[in-house]
């Protein structure tokens, strides 16, 4: 049994005292930033990147991965108790989670979120272990045409699952791709769209883009609204859900884990899309029996299981193909590069200790998180009683320092403020920022692979359709677009996102 052998290598690495300590540190830090709205894994990982240089590669990656999935756990606490998402991926949890808290059932909501996340974390760890090796083998056969088609599929997937108008989502993706091209062109060495500004010849930093579009834009709209927040901290007594709750949620958690894992594997997927899709699917399946939006426990279990599953399986495209599916994964690539590791299918064969150690650490980390979250819930609640007017200057400072620390350049902070403006405008115009970020990350890679594919085929564009894997990927992408155009599906999608 290869799998058992591989996992035993992995646990051998993950269970060393040093790596256990870093795993714990990552999970703890992840929960902390997950609970705090506005400070997410992107800012945190960006700040920690320079420090990881001094750590052994496995420990560094174990810690950074822990921050990402730890944040998924922490985000639900804020969503349930305060009605604002601690992480963007727990935005849908607010609907039923907060409604449950208002009915005095905050405890079971927190409990089911943690249990669902734990179950999803365990299953998706096994899924990574099962699916990553065959995928890496397939990936070795990938040429530039396949890479290009795969990225097209990822971008299409991200637009289909984005809110609002489809055509605006596609336009946002294109804008992201274009912004990603700013900087030196690798083939000709020409600095494109830099307008003589030397800082732009390295391109726009994606940390700044992500933090401006998400972090700053969110702070601005929160300050604008000056809403009052109410924290439920008195009513949390019984954290364990009743048997009836658990019976009700069993299939929900299993379905959501499956969907979340599948969406995480897709480049462009990850925790955010998984949570929205799982909530919409659950609402559809349960139908009129449920009381979604009014405190149905399944409305908490579904997105919380799915986002954790999606967060973990999004490591699959990173580890097997070297394609980042969201900004956090793009930062993980940065962390691997600092250690001198080129992400791609060869990681698994050349560095089995790193690969399997990281996977095993995810299971260990999930076990730590469930222990960390349930008994320490009082501490996190205390943290949430901090007023927003004290919190948002802190968010701004940490974002600014995080952006600055990537290149030690104040230019990047200015870029972030401009993207804060763009993010604000996009929110006002109902243009979803998520597809823009993905396009931004994938832009240079897509161009590179398109060029290579066309060079190899001597300018024949049919190469994308004649190579079987590439053709298959494009057919799926086209199918998704076709599905979107279909009137019946269009209606369902509009209903599903009407929250």
């Amino acid at each position: 049994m290869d799998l058992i052998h591989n996992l035993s290598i992995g646990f051998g690495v993950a269970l060393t005292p040093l790596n256990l300590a870093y795993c714990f540190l990552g999970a703890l830090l992840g929960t902390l930033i997950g609970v705090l709205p506005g400070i997410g894994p992107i800012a945190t990982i960006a700040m920690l990147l320079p420090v990881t240089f001094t750590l052994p590669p496995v420990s560094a990656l174990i810690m950074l991965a822990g921050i990402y999935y730890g944040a998924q756990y922490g985000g639900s606490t804020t969503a349930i108790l305060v009605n604002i998402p601690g992480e963007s991926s727990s935005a849908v949890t607010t609907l039923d989670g907060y409604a449950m808290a208002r009915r005095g059932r905050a405890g079971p909501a927190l409990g089911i979120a943690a249990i669902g996340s734990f179950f999803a974390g365990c299953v998706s760890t096994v899924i990574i272990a099962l699916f990553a090796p065959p995928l890496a083998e397939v990936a070795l056969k990938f040429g530039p045409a396949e890479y290009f088609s795969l990225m097209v599929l990822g971008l299409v997937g991200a637009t289909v699952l984005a809110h609002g108008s489809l055509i605006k989502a596609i336009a946002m993706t294109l804008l992201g791709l274009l912004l990603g091209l700013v900087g030196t062109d690798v083939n000709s060495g020409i600095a494109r769209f830099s307008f003589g500004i030397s800082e732009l010849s390295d391109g726009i930093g994606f940390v700044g883009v992500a933090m401006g579009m998400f972090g700053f834009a969110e702070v601005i709209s929160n300050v604008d609204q000056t809403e009052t927040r109410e924290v439920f901290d008195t009513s949390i007594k019984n954290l364990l859900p009743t048997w009836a709750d658990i019976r009700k949620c069993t299939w929900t958690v299993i379905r959501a884990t499956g969907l979340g894992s599948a969406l995480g594997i897709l480049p462009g997927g990850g925790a955010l899309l998984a949570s929205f899709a799982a909530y919409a699917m659950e609402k559809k399946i349960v139908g009129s029996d449920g009381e979604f939006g009014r405190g149905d426990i399944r409305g908490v279990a579904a997105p919380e299981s799915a986002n954790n599953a999606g967060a973990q399986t999004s490591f699959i495209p990173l580890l097997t193909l070297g394609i980042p599916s969201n900004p956090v994964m793009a930062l993980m690539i940065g962390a691997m590069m600092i250690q001198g590791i080129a992400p791609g299918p060869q990681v698994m064969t050349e560095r089995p200790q790193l690969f399997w150690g990281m996977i095993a650490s995810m299971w260990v980390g999930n076990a730590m998180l469930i222990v960390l979250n349930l008994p320490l819930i009082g501490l996190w609640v205390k943290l949430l009683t901090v007023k927003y007017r004290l919190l948002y200057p802190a968010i701004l400072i940490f974002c600014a320092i995080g952006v600055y620390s990537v290149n030690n350049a104040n230019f990047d902070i200015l870029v972030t403020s401009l993207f804060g403006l763009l993010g604000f405008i996009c929110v006002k115009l109902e243009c979803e920022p998520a597809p823009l970020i993905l396009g931004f990350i994938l832009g240079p890679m897509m161009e590179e692979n398109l060029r290579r594919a066309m060079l190899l085929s001597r300018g024949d564009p049919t190469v994308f359709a004649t190579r079987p894997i590439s053709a298959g990927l494009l057919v799926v992408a086209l199918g998704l677009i076709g599905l979107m155009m279909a009137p019946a599906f269009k209606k369902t999608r509009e209903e599903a996102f009407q929250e």
Partner: protein
Amino acid sequence: MQIKNGKDFWSGLMFMAFGLGFSIVAYNNYNMGSAVRMGPAYFPVMLGALLTVLGAVIFGRSFASSIQHSIRVFAFRPVVFLIACVCGALAYYLRGHNDFLYSLALAATLIVGQAAFGTRALYIVLASVVVFAFVLKPLGLLLATALLVIISRIPDADFRWGELPKAVIFGVVVIAVYAAILAGLQGVVGVGRASAIAMVVAIAGAIFGARRVPGTELGALFAILGVFSVAVFGHGLGLPFNACPDVLDDACRKIGLGS
């Protein structure tokens, strides 16, 4: 013809502007190449053209949309935008001639430009970040943090100008306490540990003080964030920050706050 959906109208315009801009700049300045050997302009021109087409569709849709949105989606101020353009031109002219004036003009361009769109919360929050970026190196992390916190709090409903002097004095006292403990202990336990101890004492003191003395909350906030940043990011993570203003560097180095 009547504009029905203002959100589509503006987003269509925005996408067309970006699409045309990228295509035209790429087409005029870089080599297109051929499909076999794509030049640096090939991919951007293709994407830009596609974006322009999509933008035009969205723009056209705004006249026939069944969804009604006002044309005033956000408060765009053309006059303010023009002033920003003038500042931008000035910055372009000063580039390479006078660094200080150039920075000033660039900061003005960004702040005024952002003020042309939307609400007070938008431009004041973004202005605080722009100011932070420009003063971080010359004035150091502590002062930059204080400026960001104070400016970003202006649009908040609980902000009172009258409380500001008291808050600033309180914040300065907290930071002075931190610096004094750091200076005293660094010879005994080393800079890292001294900074951690000083941070804990200063933060605890700031929280204790701010609860008892009304009107000092803002000062406590910037002092806590400044001290935390210096201790954790500077001393702890080793990120290269100046804690103090450049002109005071020698004095600061003696108490363990040097760059």
